[in-house]
């Protein structure tokens, strides 16, 4: 599904990714871990298509096609979704209107008709319930004044509504208490299927207790320096990142 080969990327002239190799197949969950500044968020931003991040070398293929020249919305139409570490507050746009616009613009981008209002409403209700989101919450301005937990739950709600093929969860666990973490993880797990894939970016093993990965990769100074199964996350939790750095 996602095939990254020797990916180099820079922002404002500064090279951050220095040869990433990553292959994600449908049905898989990959965790990317690593210390601060290792390039985890840059990798997710590059995959999602931020125009300030320039791919300088290597390839970025999604379902076999090079997506490095596509805009973020075009990638979203293909089925790439990025859950933000810091979701942006947008006063004046309600959650409901935002999600309706996102769904219908995505459908338009996919050459589909708009979703009928009653189908949309039903889906919103169903997905809100899945994430224990109160319907009142849906008429509030997007992320404005939301708690950390509400913001993250809202991200996963959008994920559930948009049903992407590839979901990248960038530090979804940060700012969550254990109950919120469980709700969010449960929401993500419900959406797992053999057809879609998830990349979980996190500092800590904690989230991976709930969203169990098939593969764990350690990113350090813009490269994946170690890959393994879910036990690698436990090892990191125990030994810390210094162990990896020293091994380098």
């Amino acid at each position, binding site marked *: 599904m996602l095939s990254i080969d020797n990916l180099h990327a820079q922002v404002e002239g500064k090279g951050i990714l220095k040869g990433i190799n990553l292959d994600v197949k449908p049905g898989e969950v990959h965790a990317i871990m690593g210390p601060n500044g290792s390039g985890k968020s840059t990798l997710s931003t590059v995959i999602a*298509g931020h125009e300030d991040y320039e791919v300088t070398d290597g390839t970025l293929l999604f379902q076999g096609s090079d997506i490095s020249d596509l*805009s973020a*919305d075009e990638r979203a139409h293909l089925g790439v979704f990025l859950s933000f570490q810091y979701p*942006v507050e947008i006063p*004046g746009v*309600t959650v409901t209107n935002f999600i309706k*616009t996102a769904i219908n613009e995505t459908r338009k981008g996919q050459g589909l008709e708009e979703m009928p209002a009653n189908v949309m409403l039903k889906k919103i209700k169903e997905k809100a319930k899945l994430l224990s989101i109160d319907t009142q919450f849906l008429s509030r301005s997007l992320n404005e004044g939301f708690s950390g937990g509400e913001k993250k739950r809202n991200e996963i709600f959008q994920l559930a509504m*948009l049903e992407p093929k590839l979901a990248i969860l960038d530090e979804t666990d940060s700012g969550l208490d254990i109950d919120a973490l469980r709700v969010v993880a449960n929401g993500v797990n419900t959406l797992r299927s053999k057809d879609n894939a998830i990349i979980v970016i996190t500092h800590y093993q904690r989230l991976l207790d709930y969203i169990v990965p098939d593969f764990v990769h350690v990113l350090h100074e813009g490269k994946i320096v170690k890959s393994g199964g879910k036990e690698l996350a436990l090892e990191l939790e125990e030994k810390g990142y210094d162990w990896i750095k020293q091994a380098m």
Partner: protein
Amino acid sequence: MDLQEKLVASYMAQTSSTEDLSAIAKIRSSAIETFEQQGFPTKKMEEWKYTPLNKLVKTDYTVFPKKTKNLTLDDVQPYILHDVDTYKIVFVDGVYSAFLSETTHEGMDVCLMSAALSQPKYRKVIETYFDTATDSEDSFTALNTAFGREGAFIHIPKKKVVEKPIQIIHFSTGVNQNLMLQPRNLIVADQQAEVQIIERHQSLSDTEVFTNVVTEIFTHKGAQVDYYKIQNDHEEASLVDSTYIVQQKHSHAKVHTFSFGSRFVRNNLHFYHKDEAIQSTMKGITLVEGKQLVDHHTLVHHAHPNSESHQEYKGIYDGQATGVFNGKIVVEQEAQKTNAFQQNNNILMSDKATINTKPQLEIFADDVRCTHGCTIGQLDETALFYLQTRGIPQKEARALLTYAFANNVLASVTIPAVKMRINALIAKKLGVNLGFNL
């Protein structure tokens, strides 16, 4: 002959052929003298520093349009609100169109200025109100006072709550000629009367049209006037709109100004408080591009205690557009416990767009609350990226953020059909097909 000379000469020519009340004739002749002495404002004047009139007053206009194109309903339908039942006072090239209008004299007067000026039964009202609210030293206003013979005359008697909004629409057709129009509106809301009014000026041709409109509004004790100006005229049209509102105790006057169209717009919006416990509300959304210029000059004159004024203007400027916001608040010594709020927020969408914003507070009372603020910024790039990752293309994402920036101004719009129309106009102006039913 320049425009000023031409106007003065035209005035002389018309006075011999019209009959006015003698009191009005006197006001007009004094007004043309003021205009003749002052001429058009120049950039040297503080009030016109950022608003050049050169092009506007160097054009040759027909002052008395002769040929009026016959309009069909199809020509005008797009500019009239239909999804709500309304009274309509419609003019074409300054001439009343009975065909397009729906006026009334039942329990109130929703009719014509020309009728009010000429019929004896209105004499007392005219003598009481006509040209009493205006700034007689303002040369555009003086010019209108000299020429203005047609427009809307609305008189709502005591305790009458007008059941449906009133649309005042001035069309211009300008067949092969540039037009100068000078509509004059007079609105009187007696004690506890309530009325909603929508005003629009619309050119239907590619010729240059210069409208110099003056509106006087009187809100008596406890009256409520809810006024909407939809400024979305043709790109060759220009507008100088001077609105003077005189308020009595417990009255509430509310003016929303939506400026999307025209090449040049200058709004002078003045509120004068004649008693205590008055509310004045003025709100605006300006959304312009290209070489458009929109200038908002507001004045609230707090002269008595315990009154409030609330102003909130949002501006979005793209291309080489220019905006001016000058909000003057005067609080007289006697006007203790005044609560005046003023906010002007702007977004510049391009490097070449300009906004000149200036709060101007003159406060002589010591126990007042006056807050003001202005901001100039750009669309949040991170927010744009966020929307794009959700599948919303850049153009739509920019439109959504722009709309979100401006839309709290719409919260106080009480006519749903107006709100819907404004939403649609914003979407059209931004070139997107979004519902905006937030």
